[in-house]
């Protein structure tokens, strides 16, 4: 029972217990259990079609869990609608349909921050991490380059000052320097706000450099878990991701 590991130390911020979910009659994730404590970064690795995105969507409430239980800070949130999850402090950075193309950069950021009074202040804080976003505030988001769009997605998640971030393949299609920047931002956010992160990735070195722990999702089930810093982790993972 993998969830048991989390019980030992601090109580989990997010706990996923034996959750199954899918579309129509099909089950895509099958009895997945995992837990993330406050300030922890967990990366879920796996190849395409293994259920990583479905796992995120189920936590977020876009896909209804068929079985199992999800709690956030001890409160049951299974099958809660997405907007309620977002308001409970979960920021979701999906892989597809990620920005509002026809809204400006500023409006895109504002949608993610319900509090209008502190918005200006929060936007200013971007100067440290993504100064380029500040230059483009009035620009239509659809005209941003691919890398800039990823920055926008990450900025929006950070500005929400969430308890938990769910981030789906942020590294895909990014240049190595940008990937490093993303890693920095994740670490800084964790330092500043104690934000926990669930990071779904295919990019092995990026994921292992940021995360505290890893889990491997294969055909809808968690087949391996461990600390990311473990020297043997990489070879174990290469084995899993290859087949």
């Amino acid at each position, binding site marked *: 029972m993998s969830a048991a590991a989390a019980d030992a130390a601090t109580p989990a911020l997010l706990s996923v217990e034996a959750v199954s979910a899918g579309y129509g009659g099909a089950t895509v994730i099958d009895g997945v259990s995992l837990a993330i404590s406050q300030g922890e970064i967990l990366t879920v690795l796996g190849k395409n079609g293994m259920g990583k995105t479905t796992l995120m969507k189920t936590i*977020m409430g*876009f896909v209804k869990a068929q079985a199992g239980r999800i709690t956030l800070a001890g409160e049951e949130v299974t099958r809660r*609608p*997405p*907007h*309620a999850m*977002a*308001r409970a402090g979960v920021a*979701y950075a*999906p892989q597809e*349909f*990620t*920005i*509002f*193309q*026809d*809204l400006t950069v500023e*409006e895109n950021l*504002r*949608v*993610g921050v*319900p509090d*209008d009074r502190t918005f200006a202040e929060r936007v200013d804080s971007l100067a440290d991490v993504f100064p380029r976003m500040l230059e483009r505030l009035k620009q239509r988001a659809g005209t941003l380059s691919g890398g800039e769009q990823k920055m926008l997605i990450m900025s*929006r998640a950070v500005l*929400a000052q969430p308890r938990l971030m769910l981030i789906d393949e942020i590294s895909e299609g990014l240049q190595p320097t940008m990937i490093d920047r993303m890693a920095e931002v994740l670490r800084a956010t964790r330092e500043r706000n104690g934000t926990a992160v669930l990071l779904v990735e295919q990019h092995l070195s990026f994921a292992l450099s940021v995360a505290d722990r890893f889990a491997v999702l294969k055909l809808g089930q968690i087949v391996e878990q461990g600390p990311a810093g473990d020297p043997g982790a990489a070879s174990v993972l290469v084995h899993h991701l290859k087949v």
Partner: protein
Amino acid sequence: MANLALDMITTSAILFVVASGLMIILGVMKLINFAHGAFLTLGGYAAYLTTEAGLSPWLAPLLAGAVGFGVGIVVERVIVRPLYHRPLDAILATWGLGIIIGQLITIGFGREVQFAASPMTGTLDLGGIEYSAYRLTLTAVALAIGGALTALLYLTRFGLNARAVIMNETLARGLGIDSARVRLLTFGLGAGLACGAGALITPLLSVDPNMGLPWLVNSFMLVLVSGVSIPSLALASLILGSAQVAVSSYISPIIGGLTIVVLAAVLLRLYPKGLGRGT
């Protein structure tokens, strides 16, 4: 000639006012509200009751708008929400709702034509041309409504949320926007606008249980041609409204009544996305 131009402008303004409520609902909810005609009628009767009660006719559109908002909220909860994933059925259900409203009005007021008092009569002198003061006022009201809707959409949090839902509902929900609430308020707003518009047009016409029907079809056509955008609805109203006035004056009023429907069907065949999206 100047009179014709004024006819074109004021007719377009009236069309814009009448269609705006339908457009708001279509934009945010992707729903064609077939009860739009009945809401217009409801507004007409609200205006009739207002003036019958001895209140100022200027109050009529505001009261009608409030009634429409209330009715819209209830209708959204009971009829529209369960059909959110069956858009064609939602069209039918709102049409059924239109029948219900129409029959309730018939039972309450009878089928005969009634008249509501006009807030103003007579003409204004525009540099030598005498023109109906009320029609000119309506044009100003149309501009005000257009401005207010634009401000609502672009300057408020509700507007931002609504635009986010229009563009990508899934993402909006993921970022904490309660799209069900946005839809509820939008339907209320659209119904309120429709009732208000019904009250605004009654001084030009009479009130009867079917008064909304001819406007319903023209409103659809305008909204479908314009797409969801306030400036393009204004543009579509101006083009199609002017064409209607021109055909009515030069060819025949009966054919004039067809202009909007036929032109819109052809325009949509040529530019399926409507004027708003360009070509």
